[in-house]
């Protein structure tokens, strides 16, 4: 059933706000994500899918981890834009660790700088398969509590 009612949580990390605005554009009457049952909740406890734009830095690393930990399973993470994938233009900044995968496991990457609303919606739809598989498996994934020390270590996407 999660297929028909994915509730999302949107978090914006170190970004130029470009992808951020595109995510919000999905909610406008032009794209109207609600027709897929998608609701943008501001609440991690109600969310099924975490949409992250922007890269991970020293300041937002604990925030992203906490948001992820507060989401009830099954859950999925969609990284949107070049920044969320690798750090993008902010990659070489002194305080930036890199993409979202340095903090939490990522399931779907949406390319683009900025990512287009159509692609974002496609990314969410792709994340639905991930959620469905997780629900069928019923295996409660172990929480990946990566410490700050190994935050820089590369982790490849996927919760399992």
């Amino acid at each position: 059933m999660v297929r028909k009612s994915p509730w999302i949580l949107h978090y914006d990390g170190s970004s130029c706000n470009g992808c951020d605005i595109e995510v919000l554009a999905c909610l406008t009457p032009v794209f109207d994500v609600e027709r897929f049952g998608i609701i943008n909740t501001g609440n991690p406890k109600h969310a099924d899918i975490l949409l992250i734009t922007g890269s991970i830095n020293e300041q937002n690393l604990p925030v992203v981890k906490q948001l992820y930990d507060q989401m009830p399973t099954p859950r999925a993470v969609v990284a949107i834009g070049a920044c969320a994938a690798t750090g993008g233009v902010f990659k070489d900044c002194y305080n930036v660790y890199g993409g979202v995968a340095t903090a939490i496991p990522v399931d779907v990457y949406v390319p683009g700088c900025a990512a287009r609303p159509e692609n974002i919606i496609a990314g969410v739809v792709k994340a639905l398969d991930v959620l469905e598989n997780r629900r069928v498996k019923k295996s409660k994934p172990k929480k990946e509590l990566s410490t700050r020390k190994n935050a820089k270590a590369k982790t490849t996407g996927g919760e399992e």
Partner: protein
Amino acid sequence: MNSFTLVLIEVLLAVIAAPIVGGLLTGIDRKITARMQRRKGPPLLQPFYDVAKLLQKESSTVNMFTRFFTSFSLFFTVLAVVLLFIGQDLLLCIFSFTLAMIFFVIMGYSGYSPYSFIGAERELIQIMCYEPMILIMAFGFYESTGSFKISETLVQSTPVITKIPLIFLGFIFILTIKLRKSPFDLSMSHHAHQELVKGITTELTGICMAMVEVTHWFETVFSLALVYVFFIWANPYSHVIAVAACLIAYFLEILIDNIFARLKWEPVLRTSWIVTGAASLANFIILGLI
């Protein structure tokens, strides 16, 4: 058919049909709201999908009381609907309904989130706003039918609305609060992304959130059923009129929801007490004169 089977059918109707109707009404609400905003909107059955989804999610509660109070809130709301459907005492329905709301508030306080706390406080303010009117309505019923029994309305020669029209208007006013519609959706809103996150329900996950949704379906049916009893009398065709009245009232609520922005709690309290107070006072004076 003896009276026992009749009551049994009515109870089953309340327990099984009421949530289905409530869920459908919520679906229609979301669809109409979307159309008013020039969007396509979710499928009609979306509220049912949401609840089914929530039941499949992990349920993590901050403490054991959360689930306990949510279940009690649901139970007493269902009880209120059942009592109303079998034509029982109106006061009993109202008390059961209020008790359910109090359990809901305690649930909000049992969470540790500040959002849930503020939500619970605002929910109490909302109860303060509409509770006097609901009790006045019960009194108005008594004045016009000579009994608190809802089944009594079915033997009247005229519908109750002809005697207490102003009280009905006051009731319609507080219906906006009860259905959690803007501008009076202080404690939690159906629309995502509010300043209070999800207000009183912020801490709820999985089955608890599903129960809150279902409770709201019952609440919707209960509120509209109260509109319904204003319009029925001995004539069997009156039921058609009553259903039409409920649908019009519901549509008006959706319209109001879409054209007003949320108010602060002071104006909500002020306007609801002034409107309901003036309406009911005027009505009782007229009743006294006739």
